[in-house]
Every structure is written in C-alpha cells, then in structure tokens.
C-alpha cells in the first residue's frame, strides 16, 4: 500500500476532528457560561456551588484570554468552512435593523470587556474600544452564521451508501419478480405432473382389480406405464415447451446465482462500510469527548485554584526574588488584610521580619543586615479574631535568595581605585545589579 494512501484518511480524520472542535468548544463554553450566569442571577436562593467555584470565579483577565482563544478557534473554523465553500465571507451582513442594533451593542460590550481586562493604559481606553468594536462588529455576522450551523458532512459521508443502495434495491426488485415467476411455473408444473401420476395410478389400480394379476407383475406393469407416459409426455407432447422452459429456467438460475452473489457482495460492502463508519465516528466522538472533558477539567481546576488563592492568605510573587542585604523586597498576593493584631507578622527562617509597609495585597520590607547569605523562606502568620480560640492562619511559603552585597555593589576601596580592572569589575557589578536587582544605579 502506498504511504500517502494510508496517511491521507488519517490526516482527513484529524482535520475533521479539529474542524468539529472549532465549532463545538465555543458552543459548549458559551452555553455553559450563559447557563451559569442565568442560574446565578435568576435563583440567588439556590446557588450552584460548582459553577460559583469554577467558571464564575474566573477573573476578568482569565475570561478575556479564554474568549480570545475561542475567537481564534472560531476564525480557524470559519476559514476551514470557507476553504470548502460552505460559508460565504460577506462583511456587514445583517438582515434587519434590530440585528444591527443588538450586534453593535454586543460588539461595544465585548470590546469594552477586553480592553478593561487586558489593556494597561487606562487613559487611552476609548481608542482600542472603538477599534475593537468595529472589528467585532465586522466579524459578528460570520461568527453567528458559523455557530448556528453545524457541518456534519463527514458523518454523512461515512454512513451514506445512497447511490449504490438505490441500484441494489432496483436489482433486488427485478430479481424478486423473476424468482416469483420461476416459482409460479415450477408449482404449476409440479401440480400438473402430480395430477397426471395420480390419474395413471388410479387407472392402474382399477386395471389390477379387473385383471387380478399378482403384485410383482402389477408393479412392473405400473412402472412401465408410468415410464411410457413420461416419455410420451416429455418427448412428444411437451418436448418443445420443456426445452424452452429448461432454457429459461437455466438462464434464470444463472441470473439468480449471479444476483445472490452480487447481493452478498453488496451486503458485505454495506456491513464493512457501516462498521468502518461507526468505528470512525465512535473514535471521533471519543477523541472529542476526551478533549472536551480534559479542557473542562483543567479549566475548572484552574478556576478553583485561583478562587482558593483569592480566599486564603497567599503570596504569589516576591520582587526581587534574588537580592542582597539592606535591599527593599516586595511580597504580592491576596488577603494580607490590615495589621490589626500585634501577632500578625511576616516570618522568615531567621525569625520575624520588620515590615515597612503592610497592605491588603502587598507587604514591603528591608532585608535585615544580620541575615545570612543563602536562600531564606518567608511566610505570613495572622491571627483570625473571628475564629474560635483565635486560630493562627499561615500563608504559603516563598523563597528569597540572598547574595553577598559586594557581588552587586563596589566596596569603598574599589571605588577609590582608578585602574582599568577596577572599572571592569564595577561594570560587571552594574550588569549584575541590572539583571538581578533591576536597579543599575546606587540607591
């Protein structure tokens, strides 16, 4: 078998899977999101924990990123359908005024959402909002026509045998007709023959009684009569007709055998194709289900993880993560709260740390001079007043690497020296400061 003949169906199969996923993933996500929003807002007395902890707990940034990914998937799906001439690209295609109004408002909302979530320069938001509104408004009709129709040609192609089926149905009808005809002739002839034999036997029986001969002679006589009758009947009276029937029967039988051969071949092909079709579609469905389950699980896991981060005392970032003694370090995260209790503290492997600034999402401190030059773990401890027995809450641990100050800053003696090596060393230290401390100049 040629390699391309073998690889082509596999390539087509995976192409169809990607094409189908490009349609299915946005549909599932939008349905899931809209249903979660609807139930959340319509039945506030009956909150569904699962969606509240997963999809609804996603931050705007995450949601914007997911929507952008889905948008690109949709564009890919539209491109595939356009390439197969199954969709027409025609910008600004709306059927009524109401569609234009709703599409325009939708585009404005989506662009505002994307810009608010992802755009950094807050003073110039209106420019990208206008641009994105226009872009989304242009693409929206295609998105709608893409989502509203599903391309199932691959499934149909794998199961459809319509042309071959119709031909065989006609053939079956013809052969059945001829079969009925043959059966009719055979039955009529057999009835006639049976009747003739019965008449002969009746005649022989009457003759036997009349002549009163012995049984053996009578049997021989009867057989003789029967034989003579058959010879006379088939050779003299029905010779021509019999030969014609025989020929017809033979032809019909050959046709019948041929028909059964064709029928069995067709049935084999039908079964083979159906089994193949179902296998391909089942495989297709399994892959699609696995992909969707995996993505949904990962998305839910991520959303749940993000929610837990926001609900607990969590340090998510230390800046800089590599520093020296006497440098300022910032910890960023969630739920640091106000420092109302004296026992709320930032702790390291070297003991409690003196904090310069404590905010809800940021703590700033200076690395004490007595700390050793090595990796040090840091965490936050808070006393939860509203909990029984004033429970101690601990954050996650984050590592800070402390290097020697003289690896980054020139010593006093080094500053006084004016030789080229000293300048080179100072340049190297400046590069180090830029890379690790992100502060090339002296504080």
């Amino acid at each position, binding site marked *: 078998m040629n390699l391309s003949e073998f690889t082509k169906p596999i390539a087509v199969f995976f192409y169809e899977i990607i094409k189908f996923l490009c349609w299915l993933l946005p549909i599932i996500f*939008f349905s899931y999101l809209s249903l979660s929003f609807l139930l959340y*807002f319509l039945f506030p007395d009956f909150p569904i924990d699962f969606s509240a902890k997963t999809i609804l707990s996603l931050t*705007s940034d995450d949601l914007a990123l997911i929507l952008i990914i889905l948008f690109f998937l949709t564009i890919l799906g539209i491109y595939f359908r356009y390439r197969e001439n199954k969709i027409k690209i025609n910008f600004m295609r709306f059927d009524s005024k*109401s569609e234009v109004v*709703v599409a325009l408002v939708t585009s*404005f909302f989506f662009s505002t*959402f994307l810009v608010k979530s992802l755009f950094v320069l807050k003073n110039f938001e209106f420019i990208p909002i206008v641009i994105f509104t226009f872009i989304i408004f242009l693409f929206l009709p295609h998105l709608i026509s893409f989502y509203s129709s599903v391309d199932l040609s691959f499934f149909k192609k794998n199961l459809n045998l319509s042309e071959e089926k119709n031909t065989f149905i006609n053939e079956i009808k013809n052969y059945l007709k001829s079969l009925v005809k043959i059966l009719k002739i055979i039955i009529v002839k057999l009835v006639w023959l049976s009747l003739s034999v019965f008449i002969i036997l009746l005649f022989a029986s009457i003759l036997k009684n009349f002549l009163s001969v012995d049984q053996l002679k009578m049997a021989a006589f009867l057989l003789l009569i029967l034989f003579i009758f058959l010879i006379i009947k088939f050779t003299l009276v029905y010779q021509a007709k019999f030969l014609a029937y025989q020929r017809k029967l033979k032809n019909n039988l050959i046709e019948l055998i041929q028909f059964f051969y064709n029928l069995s071949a067709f049935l084999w092909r039908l079964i083979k194709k159906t089994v193949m079709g179902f296998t391909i579609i089942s495989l297709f469905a399994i892959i699609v289900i696995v992909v969707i389950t995996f993505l949904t699980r990962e998305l839910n896991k991520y959303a749940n993880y993000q929610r837990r981060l926001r609900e607990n005392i969590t340090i998510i970032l230390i800046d800089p993560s590599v520093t020296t003694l006497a440098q300022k370090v910032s910890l960023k995260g969630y739920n640091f709260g106000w420092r109302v209790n004296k026992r709320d503290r930032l702790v390291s492997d070297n003991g409690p740390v003196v904090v310069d600034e404590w905010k809800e999402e940021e703590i700033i401190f200076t690395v004490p001079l007595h700390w050793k030059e090595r990796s040090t773990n840091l965490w936050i401890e808070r006393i939860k007043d509203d909990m029984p027995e004033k429970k101690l809450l601990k954050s996650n641990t984050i590592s800070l690497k402390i290097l020697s100050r003289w690896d980054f800053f020139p010593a006093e003696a080094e500053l006084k020296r004016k030789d080229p090596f000293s300048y080179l060393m100072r340049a190297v230290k400046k590069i180090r400061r830029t890379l690790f401390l992100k502060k090339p100049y002296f504080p």
Partner: protein
Amino acid sequence: MPKIFYFILLIVSFNLVRLLKESPPFFLLVILFVFALMVQVKYFEKLTFSIRRDFEKHHLGKSDFRKRLVLGLIFFIAVFVVRKAGGVGWLFGSFDEATLLFFSLLGLLILLQTSSLTSALLAVAAISYTAFFIIYKFDKTGEIFASLTFFLFTWASLQALREKLLADQAKKSSAFDI
C-alpha cells in the same frame, strides 16, 4: 395520560411541601410545581402559539431563528462579562441584579420580534413564580421574579402601544390611498 401524570405530580408536590421545606429539593419542587400548574392551564400551548404567530408575522425561518438565538445568547454573555470587568459603568452602575437580567434578555426579546402578547405571557409565567417563591419564603428569588414581571409587563405595554400606533398609521395611509 399526561393529564394524569401532572395531576399526580401536583398532588405529590403539595404533600411534599411540608416535608422538604428548607432543603434544596424543595426549591426544585416549587419550580416543578409551578411548571406543572402552567402545563395544566395550557400555558405553554398558548405561548408556543403566540411565538409561532410572531415568527409567521415577521417571516422568520428556522435558520433565522437559530441565528437570532445565537446573537441573543452572545449579547446575554456580553452584558455579564462587561459588568464583571467593571466596564460601561454609566449604564450598569445603577442596575440591580433583576434589571441586569432583564437587560441581558432584552436582546433576545428584540431579536425574536416578540409581540406584546408573548411578552405579557412571559410576564404571567414570571408572576406565577414570584407568587410561589414569596409564599415559600425564597425572598431574593421572589424579588428577582417580581422585578422581571414588572419589566416584562412594561415591555408588553410599550409594544402594545407601538403596535397600536403602527396599526393606526397603516389605517391612515390606506384611507389616504382610497
């Protein structure tokens, strides 16, 4: 057969009301109970008839319906996500949850060209749920449905006014033609 089924469902719902109070199945039962009541009074038949009449009036085919439904759903999502991101504050700043919900469904109502009758029928469904949620002390949900009822009736009245104006205009223009 369906009548017997709904009748049994109603009886079971009534009997279970006391047993299941303040548990999640009770909430679902209230929803099902009102649904069954609406089926008993042939509410859904009337609603379907009204929606079908709207479609016929505006010559909306199956593919048009699908497209408008998709656009309506995208609009619905757009409203919630933009509010989540804190955008369009001049509009959503003053919206409570029920108003936001009605606003998000407004796109669908406009796109599917619902008549005043359809909107009024939807309001009837909302008022039935309002009544039962308030009776059974689901106050927040009851308030949401009460606001939805108000908005849907207002929308129905506005549409009725618009339909009347259009009919008058058509009459005048036909009289002018004669």
